[in-house]
């Protein structure tokens, strides 16, 4: 899957300006970069919730995709119903939902109103429902930002498993370089709406080519 000439302008300011970016099927991508570097805008454009200046859509080559936004809406219904929103409501789906919720330790909240969940619990619910949609490409905007460490690791395990078992391509934004190192095959570093550098995660983290990447890595450290 290839992206080219994506441009998004807000109030005459160019927020996103990507010449070319390629995603290989079946890999886990981590998009990193400072706040306001355009990561969310990129993933929104891919998800189709934001249109580019020339109103072009990203071509997923016929593959299905699901997107977990940074801020997820919890509908005024049970957590379980929220989780099943984007999937079939048959017994198999319900079983999978239950086991995912159990992994993220929100199984006890299945019957509770989802709008009463905390920020981290809402993120877990949203991750469950995005995974359950069974899409071939998952677009995740900081899925674990609100989760505690234990839950973050559990969420990473779910993402890894979806990638391995169903071969889904994962494109996720993260603020944690250590998460990128743990989880991703490929790293995309963004700055000021542009992709500065992208490549295999280990390679980019250990031997970055561009000075901007070096500065970013030095500043954030790799232990964060």
């Amino acid at each position, binding site marked *: 899957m290839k992206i080219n000439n994506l441009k998004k302008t807000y109030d005459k300011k160019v927020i996103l300006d990507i010449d070319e970016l390629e995603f290989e099927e079946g890999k886990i991508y981590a998009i990193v970069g400072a706040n306001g570097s355009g990561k969310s805008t990129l993933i929104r454009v891919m*998800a189709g*919730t934001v249109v580019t200046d020339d109103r072009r859509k990203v071509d997923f080559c016929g593959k299905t995709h*699901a*997107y977990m*936004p940074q801020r*997820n809406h919890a*509908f*005024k219904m049970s957590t379980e119903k929220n989780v099943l*929103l984007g999937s079939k409501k048959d017994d198999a789906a319900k079983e999978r939902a239950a086991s995912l919720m159990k992994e993220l330790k929100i199984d006890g909240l299945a019957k509770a109103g989802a709008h009463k969940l905390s920020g981290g619990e809402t993120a877990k619910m949203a991750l469950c*429902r995005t995974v359950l949609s069974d899409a071939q490409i998952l677009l995740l905007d900081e899925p674990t930002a609100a989760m505690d460490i234990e839950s973050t690791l559990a969420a990473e395990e779910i993402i890894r498993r979806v990638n391995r078992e169903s071969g889904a391509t994962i494109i996720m934004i993260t603020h944690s370089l250590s998460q990128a190192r743990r989880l991703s095959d490929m790293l995309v570093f963004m700055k000021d709406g542009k992709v500065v550098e992208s490549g295999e995660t280990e390679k980019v983290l250990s031997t970055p080519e561009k000075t901007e990447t070096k500065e970013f890595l030095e500043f954030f450290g790799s232990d964060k």
Partner: protein
Amino acid sequence: MHNIFVKAIELIASHDPELISIVQITLKMCFSSSLAALLLGVPFGAFLALSRFPGRRAIIVLNRTLMSMPPVVCGLICYILFSGVGSLRALELLYTVTGMVIAQVILITPIVAANTETFLSGIVPDLRETTKGLGLGFSKTLGLTILESKYQIVSTYLVGFARSIAEVGAVSMVGGAIVYKTNVMTTAIMNYTSRGNFSKAMAIGIILMTMSLIVNIIVHLLSERVVDDR
């Protein structure tokens, strides 16, 4: 004062036909105008919240201005339109309940629209990202949005109802407070008071306050739900 109050209670208990007529006309007017305002205001508010077009901000500001339009100004405009010199005189709306309802709809619709716009603007951005992210279509998203708004819609309706039942300026100008025809609770209180019939005025006041109290209790309970559910 005490005497008036006792007499007022006695009047309510006595099923005075004039009182009953006043309450009936009031309810007919209030249900009609609040329902019409809801049917017009909710789609309009939703449109303002969901669409993006040049001039949208201006319309929102204009709508907020209409929200605070003094009822007598609304009454004046309707009076001119409906009266012998007005362009709508052929419809014979002056001194009719229908005319009163139209005046009230002009007053209440902006309130309904503004409430709806504010509420939806708050929930829709995240909601739309979420449903679109899950690949849900337009009709499913619309259904979910309505479901999310159900308490808000009912409480907005009741706010409109409360405004309608308490309004006097526009209603007295357009309706003329004709007994057994267009006399509603607020205009009746005014007329009885000016004629010195304080116990009848008080009787209606008690009924009016009781109804307002009930409506406001429901609104309060619902608004707690709305907050609770956020």
